[in-house]
């Protein structure tokens, strides 16, 4: 059986990473809300991807594989920045939100980060990445019924959070 050389593997892998790492890290960031943690998640996923590259590249499943590792990761809630103390008083000091890191975060993003992890993941996969209920269930390793309930509750909370934005 002929297999690609290590150079070929490295070239193909590097091309994939160059093309998709920004998108994959945005997924990680949307899930965890912290660029450092997103970087760690991305690195973990991409190193595993390198190991599995021959069969995944052959089957065209590179991105799905990396994404699944990212969205299935256990998020370290203690590192999430919105749990840190913010300067000013929310709702009373309009400058407080502007002092968050320069990450172009919007009210929508902050509202997403207030959702419980699984609700956030299902909303992101269903309503941002456009996955079906079945695909989301497969991606997260949960039942379709659980996907539906998490998504429904997540959307409700998202709307409430956005409605009550200062």
């Amino acid at each position: 059986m002929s297999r690609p050389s290590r150079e070929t593997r490295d070239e193909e892998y590097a091309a994939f990473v160059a093309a998709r790492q920004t998108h994959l890290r945005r997924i990680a960031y949307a899930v965890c809300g912290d660029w450092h943690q997103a970087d760690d998640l991305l690195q973990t996923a991409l190193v595993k991807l390198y190991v599995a590259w021959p069969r995944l590249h052959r089957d065209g499943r590179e991105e799905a594989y990396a994404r699944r590792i990212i969205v299935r990761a256990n998020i370290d809630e203690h590192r999430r920045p919105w749990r840190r103390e913010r300067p000013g008083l929310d709702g009373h000091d309009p400058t407080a939100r502007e002092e968050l890191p320069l990450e172009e975060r919007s009210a929508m993003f902050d509202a997403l980060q207030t959702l419980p992890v699984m609700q956030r993941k299902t909303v992101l996969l269903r309503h941002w990445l456009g996955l079906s209920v079945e695909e989301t269930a497969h991606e997260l390793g949960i039942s379709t019924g659980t996907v539906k309930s998490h998504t429904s509750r997540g959307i409700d909370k998202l709307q409430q959070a956005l409605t009550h934005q200062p």
Partner: protein
Amino acid sequence: MLLREEIEQSFGAGPAHRPIEELVAKGRRRVRRRRAAGLGAALATVAVLGATYAVTAPGSEGSGAPPIATDPTSTPSGPTWEDDTPIRYVDGELQIRAGVVVHEHIENPFGYDPPKLSDALDLTYEGKRTWTLAESTRKGFGYTSSVPSNGWASFADWVADQVGTAVPGDDGWPDTLRLTNNGEVVASQGSEILQRTDDPRLGDSFAPPGTPTGAAVVLAAEDGVGYFVVWRVVDGELDVITTPPRDVIGATFQQLLTYARGQYANGEGLR
């Protein structure tokens, strides 16, 4: 604005990425560790089976560059050469058997630190040209070989592929099973054994009588895919052989077992 667009536009692209070369280097190291672990397990099995290390297919003779070392007619010093191997390690040094012709030698392809050793050799032994990769670790002597040019452009390419990827069929398969301290084979964390049989009678070419063996269909936690796997526990090491998912689609567990028995009966195996 659609929710999808709102989310898409709700945050930026973040800071600069880490260098891709850093990822490649980490990936290579991870593969090398897996490769070394797989090689050790495979070779331990060969030793237990008492089989020879000679390749099964005939190699080409006398092709390529002139030899860089020809042996010797004299046998190197050290203990009696009991195994049918062209090379061995004695006291931390590579020894080449009398009569072996070395065409090319790549030292330490795994980049081990002492006392671990590794060597790759393009050699002719008993009239057969083989590409050989050997290592000496705390687990003992490991040895694998291939018929030259069997899918690789050059000896260097073959060595790079062996070092850079796991053993054939085992490069990157998700973890499905683990060995407990009690010697039981169970699903690895997060994975689920859907069907299982112990001692599936895969034959002596798979493992000698008395060796704990088994077969199962396991839903891997890593990618959520079901895999048909067979395993053997040799010298306290679990060796899991995984088959590609597309090879198992539509087959019953009994059909998979029959297929596996046939593969090991004809000497091809599942790797």
